[in-house]
Structure formats: C-alpha cells, structure tokens
C-alpha cells in the first residue's frame, strides 16, 4: 500500500439516536462510538434498526432526536452530499451508463478534480481493488464480485472520511463472499479507514470487525469484541444470534446443582439461580454408554451429520433437542445412548 492512500482516520459518534416510523421505534436511543481506524459491525436480524443507524451516519435518514458526529463535526443536519462518506450498497448501485473507470471517477468529477489527477487516482484504485485493465469495460458485463469491487473503489476514490458498508457481501455467492470478506478487511486495515458495516451474517461480523454491535428491536443488545460476544453473551438473544448455542431453561436446586432437560447436573462455578443454561455445541464431548450403564447427563443420538472437518450430532436430552459438534474420528449410530461430558466452566448462565 502506498502512502498516498493513507487516510487520516476520524471517529464516528452516535449520541442517543432515535428514529420512529409510524409510531414504531426503528432505532431506540442508540449511542455508539467507532474509534479512528476501527471497523465495527452492526449485527442483527432484519428490522433490528441496524440499517437505519447506518443510514443516519450516511445522511439518508435524519434522526428524530440525537446527534451524529464524524470526527469533530456535528453532521446531524448536514446533507448527505456534504458529509464526505464512502458508501457501498448490497445491490452495488453502479451507474449502468458509465464504464468501470467512469463509475470510479464519478465522485472525483463531482468534486472537480483536474483530468490528470483524476486519471491517476482512478488507475490507482483499479490497482487497489484488483481490477487493473478493466477501466473501459461496461459495468453490466462484470460479475457480482467484480461489481462490488468497482463499488468499493468508487466509494474510496474521493478520499472519504469514513466508509459505510450496507450488507456489501449479501448478494454474492458463498465462495466469492468469503474471498471478498478477507480482502475487504485487509484493505480496511491497510487504509486505516474508520468503517461501519451492517450485516445479518454473524460470521461476517465476527470475522471482519474489531468490535461487533448486536442490535435487536432498535436497541443495542451487546457491544464487544467478537471474542467477548462469543464467550460471554449478555442476553439469550445474543447467545442464540452469535454462533450456535444450546439454551435450556434451568431450575436451581441448591447445592450448585441445576435441573436441565429433565436431568440433574452439578455446576460448581455458577451462581445457583434459576434461569437458562447455555452450552456451545463444540464443548460437548460424547462417550458411548454400555446397555444398563447410566451417566449424570445422558442422551440418545437422533441424527449424525458428517461435515468433513467435524461432525454435527443431534441429541435428545430428556425431551429437549441439543446439538453437539464433535471430532470426525468417532463413529456414532442413530439411537445410541451416550454420556455428555461438559467442563463445568463451559456452562453459561443467562436470564430467562
């Protein structure tokens, strides 16, 4: 990466953003700071307010109350075209009448760059997104992945202060998506540009960002590093949305034991309160049981799905269904009785 691409990073700050549609709060009192050079994801199901939040930063939505800052500037009432933000859309939104170079140059034309500088900047960006030699191609002849690269180059060309990505990879197929994900993150780190990403794909959010904001019903459920969210989800919603989790109601029986899925388990390091117990599929180990043998926590195998790197086992524990991810060298059969071994520090306690 050349130095001319280095961007002086600024932060994005949202203060108590509220936005209501037809009496329903789409964004309900959201405050958030994206630090200079940081990449933060807004993660959540559709309708959780993540897109509205992003669009408030872009200037396409004016919040009913609250303030938006980019760097030191209060942009709450600044028009979108004055904000100097780069935006990438799910549907690419390339200008169909312009060539690849024409699309990338659009923001530079608007800003009145002189021809020689403009040309140099366009070829620099073609290089950055790996589309050298594509300048004269019509954007209509490109694949989805190539189109999104053009869209990214177009957004970056006029040196925006921050980059906003609205589900940028959702329209692509799995392989291209994984490829572009890595590339996008690498480029973001190289440029050091402050970036806000909206996605409903938890894997995308976890793999690309420094911090993840999990949103639900217009509110922030939890904000933390991908590691934090996975290890210590703050609510059942986050636990279920970020990664897979077996989450069961649990009754405290005193003496550090709980009743869960009809069985009694001893978990010494958790506070003995009724609520929910969660356990990640990959921490469960399965031990075959001989006929007549019993274990503190046992299950019947319902289904085994071989996934290559490992295998997924669907278990009937009491009347509940659990999922375990185990190594692929063990052979299990449907209907087999197994003992579940779970390290006591792998259990999570969550409120109802």
């Amino acid at each position: 990466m050349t130095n001319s691409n280095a961007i002086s990073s600024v932060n994005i700050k949202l203060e108590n953003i509220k936005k209501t549609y037809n009496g329903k709060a789409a964004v309900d009192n959201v405050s958030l700071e994206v630090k200079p050079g940081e990449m933060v994801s807004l993660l959540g199901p559709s309708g959780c307010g993540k897109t509205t939040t992003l669009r408030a930063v872009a200037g396409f939505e004016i919040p009913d109350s609250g303030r938006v800052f980019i760097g030191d500037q209060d942009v709450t009432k600044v028009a979108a075209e004055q904000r100097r933000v780069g935006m990438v859309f799910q549907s690419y939104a390339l200008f169909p009448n312009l060539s690849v170079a024409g699309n990338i140059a659009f923001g530079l034309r608007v800003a009145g760059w002189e021809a020689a500088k403009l040309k140099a900047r366009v070829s620099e960006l073609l290089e950055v997104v790996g589309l050298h030699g594509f300048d004269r191609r019509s954007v209509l002849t490109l694949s989805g992945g190539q189109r999104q690269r053009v869209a990214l180059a177009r957004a970056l060309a006029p040196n925006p202060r921050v980059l906003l990505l609205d589900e940028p990879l959702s329209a692509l197929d799995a392989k291209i998506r994984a490829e572009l994900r890595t590339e996008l993150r690498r480029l973001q780190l190289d440029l050091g540009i402050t970036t806000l990403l909206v996605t409903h794909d938890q894997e995308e959010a976890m793999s690309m960002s420094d911090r993840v904001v999990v949103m639900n019903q217009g509110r922030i459920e939890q904000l933390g590093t991908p590691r934090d969210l996975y290890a210590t989800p703050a609510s059942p919603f986050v636990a279920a949305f970020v990664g897979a989790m077996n989450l069961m109601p649990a009754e405290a029986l005193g003496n550090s034991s709980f009743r869960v899925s009809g069985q009694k388990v001893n978990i010494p390091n958790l506070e003995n309160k009724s609520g929910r117990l969660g356990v990640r599929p990959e921490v469960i180990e399965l031990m075959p049981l001989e006929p007549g043998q019993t274990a503190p926590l046992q299950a019947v195998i319902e289904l085994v799905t071989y996934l290559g790197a490992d295998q997924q086992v669907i278990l009937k524990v009491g009347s509940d269904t659990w999922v375990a991810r185990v190594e692929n060298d063990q052979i299990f059969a449907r209907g087999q009785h197994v003992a579940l071994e779970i390290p006591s520090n792998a259990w999570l306690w969550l409120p109802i």
Partner: protein
Amino acid sequence: MTFLRRGIIGLLLAYLLLPILMTLVYSLSSSWTELIPKAFSLEAWSNLFSDPKFWADGGRSLILAFSAVALSIFFLVPTLFAITLYAPKLSSALEFFSLWPFVFPGVIMAVGLIKIFSTPPLAISGTPWLLIPAVTVVVMPYAYRAVANAFESSDVRQLAEAARSLGASDLQILAWVIFPTVLPGVLSGGVLALSAAFGEFSLAQLLVGSSWETLPYYQYLTNSQDGHKSAAISVLAFAIAWGLGSFALGLRSSDNLKDAVTVA
C-alpha cells in the same frame, strides 16, 4: 390444437394486415373494376414524393412529434425523480392525473385553448407555439407510462443515494445519473407517444389548420382530391410507425441482453 392456434393467429393477422395490404394495392392502381384493380401505376407515389408540400408537411409532423415527446419526457423525468425520492405517496395520484388527457376529447381541449390563446397577452393560436405544448399534453399518458416503466426497472432511489454519497447535488444526479440511466427504456416505451403525436389530427386541424400544416392535415386535404395518393400516405405512415416500432423493440431486446448478462 396447433391447427386451431394457427388458424386463430392467421385470422388475426389477416384482420390486421389485409386493410393495409389493400390500401397499398389501391395506392399502386390507376383504375379499378368493381372488385380488383384493372391497371397499376406508380403515379400516386411519384405525385406524392414530387410534391414539395408533402415534404414540408412531413417535416413539420416530425418536428411536432419529436418536440412534443421530448418535452413530455423533459417534464416527466424530473417529476418522477422528485416523487420517487421525496414523495413516493404521491405517485398513485400522479398516475391518475396522467390519464386525464384521455378523458377530454381533443375538440374540447382545442376550443378551450383557442379561447384563451387568441387574445393578448398570449395570442399564439394558429402557431406551432400553441400546437406543440398542446400535443405534449395529449401524449403525456403514453410518455408517462414509458418513463414510469423505465423508473421501475432501474433502482432510481439507490442510484441517487450512491451519487449523493459521492457528493452530487440533485441537479447533478438528475443530469448525470438518472437521465442517462432511464433514457433507453424511455425511448423504447416512447414510440407509442411518438406515433400518437405524429398522427395527431384534431388539434392540428383546429389549432393551426393550414397556417402550419402537418402530414395528417395534408392527408385530409388530399383525401378529397386523389384517393390513390391518400392511400399512399396511409401506407407510408404505417411504414414509419412499423420502423419506429421495430427500432424500439431492438432497444428493448438489447436491454434484455444486458439483464441476461446481469443474471449470469
């Protein structure tokens, strides 16, 4: 089944093409028995093409058609752009109003216009300056459909947002993004408007008549003098409409080709 289908299609084609075919035959004949032509000649056609008035009137018709359609597109694209972006709820109202020219007979409109524009301050009755705006209104329903379809088939809202985040003003977005994006679709859909404007007779007769003669008026005058020549004009008008139509279909299929590439 296929026999029945072919039969129905054949009947329909005959119903549509026979009158034009017979008009062509009539334009090429010099005398006629009760049922069939006795002798053929190219006299009607050579008469037509050698008449300078025909060329002048045809030219005026083209000017009228193209300027009326261009004007209606020029008004409709920014209007739909504004409505799409800032007042999407008004779009059904606009669609309703766009049909109004169909409701008023041309005669009523013409009489109203003459009444208003025959006296100062705007005494433009009898000039193309009144005819062109009037025809612009008449073709508005066709042009509206064409523009609205073109808007629907391209994501105007998203394109505008992309351009805006790159720093473009509304005017720049309209001129550099929206107009070029919707124009191919508008042109292919606008052929209907073009033919309607080209063939507009009642307004042309009442508003300008012989003081700014157009082709339909020329044909109206010819009708009483030479039926063969009039038939030749009809065939020619049909040929022009057909040519424009296939040109539009060509535009549309190249659009489809782009879509096919998009999907792949």
